[in-house]
């Protein structure tokens, strides 16, 4: 077990640095006070010498003299000898004060001390997080979208970024849950320890810095320090992915282009999927129930990079005829219709854009992508369009083009990671819906219809709940008494059980079994895991039911459980009398 970060370091630095100035102050003060008390006083009007200053008065005098307040001569007017000593005291003590304050300021300005203080504050706020949390390394476009999403789901997150500006920006954000941030190199093990990588409530580490090597190092360090932690990272290189896959434990490598290819394939397969997916990730523009179907026919793909090649693969799989335009001649043998050259109106004409049904603008430059889009539409206004938007700040321009599908790599990555963290069961739900079997398309339409009726225009929330004692106290108590809990009864409104909650259950995982769209007669077992989609209110009420035995009793039986001692006694009495009457 590695040792936790030494939190007392900062206190020791302060103590050690302050030793000299405090010592100097003490010596000067005591010397001055002692001198003051030994010097004879002045002669008063009766010709008698005033008594010498007491230690108390001398201390009082020094207190206001050294701080240059100057209340005058007490308790009697000073003798000249006392005045002479007072001059010496004043100058030395003021100089010593300046020195002491200077030492404190110097310490506060020392970059190493500031750094130690930052780390101390950071790891203190990490240690205060009591609920489950994640570590996020890299707070770029993707990281900030992800942090916003986690905040929406009230999940704390610890953020490390190498860029100081990003962390300053983080401190200004208004999050509802603790999101402590540290600007540091996350691949240094010390910083991961400060971020609490070894704590038992740290569930996952997300390594999404811009540097591939750093991500790999963070992943391996985290795995060594904590064998149970879930690792989520990004990678473009095959051999890095292999290394990551063999780290052991739960490791996810997110590739936005592969994820997008999967979504595109699913959309080709089932027209409702794109809208459903967008709606679930709380995209304001995504309305559920709008069906997007990329047309079959001839497609032109501009840019054969990571996105272009993935899209080409998917389209070819669905029997679509594609033409590639890319200035890079290296891949010319990988595809039969490959035009080498920049995507201009000339090359677009060469690719017979006027006969095409769709265009994919997938270069890594936003300006080029917009240009391609406008050129292609000029020759053929009815094209189905897919564009790649590389930078978040170009959002307004891309939205104005009214493209059918916009692919933002940062957004896709953030949403994929959010799903992995918040709703890991969603994958099996989607896999079930998209399976190539008879009736699945109908089932998807039914799901969309149900979601539309239950949640509609409200913001959807995906929630995973584990039926354990901590997360659902009432249900477990109920089960331990040997009673059965039906899933359907958990979905009743605790104010009126004949009304349904705004909750749609997607998946229940029970042991090794995964039940998609479970029946209302499903009997809950301990350790089941459920994934549901609901409104914010629905989620609150669901949590209330599974944790509060009175609410659970009502939704199960329709009667109210007596709460107070008096009510319980009365209920018992009534029950006894009723049974007695029966026997009579």
């Amino acid at each position, binding site marked *: 077990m590695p040792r936790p970060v030494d939190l007392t370091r900062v206190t020791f630095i302060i*103590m050690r640095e302050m030793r000299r100035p405090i*010592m100097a102050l*003490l010596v000067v003060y*005591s010397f001055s006070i002692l001198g003051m008390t030994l010097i004879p006083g002045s002669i008063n009007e009766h010709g008698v010498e005033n008594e010498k200053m007491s*230690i108390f008065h001398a201390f009082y005098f020094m207190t206001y003299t050294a701080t240059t307040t100057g209340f005058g001569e007490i308790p009697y007017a000073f003798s000249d000898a006392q005045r002479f000593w007072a001059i010496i005291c004043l100058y030395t003590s003021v100089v010593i004060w300046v020195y002491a304050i200077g030492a404190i300021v110097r310490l506060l300005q020392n970059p190493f001390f500031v750094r130690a203080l930052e780390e101390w504050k950071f790891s203190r706020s990490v240690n205060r997080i009591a609920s489950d949390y994640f570590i996020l390394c890299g707070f770029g476009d993707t990281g900030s979208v992800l942090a916003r999403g986690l905040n929406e789901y009230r999940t704390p997150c610890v953020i490390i970024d190498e860029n100081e500006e990003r962390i300053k920006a983080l401190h200004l954000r208004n999050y509802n849950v603790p999101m402590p941030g540290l600007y540091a190199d996350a691949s240094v093990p010390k910083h991961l320890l400060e971020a609490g990588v070894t704590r038992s409530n740290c569930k996952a580490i997300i390594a999404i810095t811009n540097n591939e090597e750093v991500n790999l190092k963070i992943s391996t360090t985290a795995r060594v320090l904590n064998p149970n932690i879930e690792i989520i990272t990004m990678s473009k290189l095959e051999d890095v992915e292999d290394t990551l896959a063999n780290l052991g434990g739960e490791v996810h490598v997110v590739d936005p282009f592969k994820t997008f290819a999967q979504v595109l394939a699913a959309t080709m397969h089932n027209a409702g999927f794109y809208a459903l997916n967008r709606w679930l990730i709380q995209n304001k523009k995504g309305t559920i129930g709008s069906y997007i179907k990329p047309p079959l026919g001839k497609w032109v793909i501009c840019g054969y990079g990571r996105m272009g090649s993935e899209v080409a693969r998917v389209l070819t799989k669905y029997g679509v005829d594609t033409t590639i335009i890319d200035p890079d001649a290296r891949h010319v043998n990988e595809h039969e219709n490959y035009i080498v050259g920049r995507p201009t109106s000339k090359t677009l004409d060469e690719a017979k854009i006027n006969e095409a049904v769709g265009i994919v603008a997938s270069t890594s430059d936003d300006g080029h992508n917009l240009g391609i889009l406008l050129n292609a539409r000029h020759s053929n206004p009815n094209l189905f369009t897919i564009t790649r938007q590389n930078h978040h700040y170009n959002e307004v321009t891309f939205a104005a083009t009214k493209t059918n599908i916009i692919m933002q790599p940062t957004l896709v990555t953030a949403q994929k990671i959010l799903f992995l963290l918040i709703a890991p069961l969603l994958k099996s739900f989607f896999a079930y819906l998209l399976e190539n079997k008879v009736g699945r398309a109908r089932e998807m339409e039914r799901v969309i219809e149900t979601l539309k009726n239950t949640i509609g225009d409200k913001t959807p929330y995906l929630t995973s709940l584990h039926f354990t004692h901590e997360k659902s106290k009432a249900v477990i108590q109920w089960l331990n008494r040997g009673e059965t809990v039906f899933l359907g009864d958990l979905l009743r409104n605790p104010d009126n059980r004949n009304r349904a909650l705004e909750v749609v259950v997607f998946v229940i995982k029970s042991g090794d079994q995964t039940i998609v769209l479970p029946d209302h007669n499903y009997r809950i077992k301990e350790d089941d895991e459920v994934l549901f989609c609901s409104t914010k209110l629905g989620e609150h009420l669901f949590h209330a039911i599974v944790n509060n035995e009175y609410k659970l009793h009502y939704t199960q039986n329709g009667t109210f459980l007596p709460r107070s001692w008096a009510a319980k006694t009365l209920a018992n009495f009534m029950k006894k009398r009723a049974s007695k009457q029966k026997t009579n």
Partner: protein
Amino acid sequence: MNLEKVIFGFFIVLALTLNFSFFLGEIGNLKHHNVFELFMVIVVNLIATILKLGDRSQIGAVLLATSLVADLQLIMAATYWTFAEHITGTGVTSEVIAGIVSLSGGALLANIISAVILVSETLMSRL
């Protein structure tokens, strides 16, 4: 020989000896207890405390604790003296001086512990 160790030992032992000489004498008799001696005891004790600051070892922590105890007791004694002399106006009667001396006796005990720790640590490092 290390100059820092000499200064450190000097102040700890001086704190103990001064404290003892203030404590020595008839408990209720003002003539046996000098106010300047109390002043010096406090100053030397504070110096000893500052010297102990910033030591991260276990022994350093215990030494600091004993010093803080002595400071607390001595400052209480001095405050008591000041109150009797200047604020309540009763003057330093034999009851007051008895209270002050007994407080300094408590500080003496803390200083003895501190000196014992110092000596035993030195002996251990000699072995």
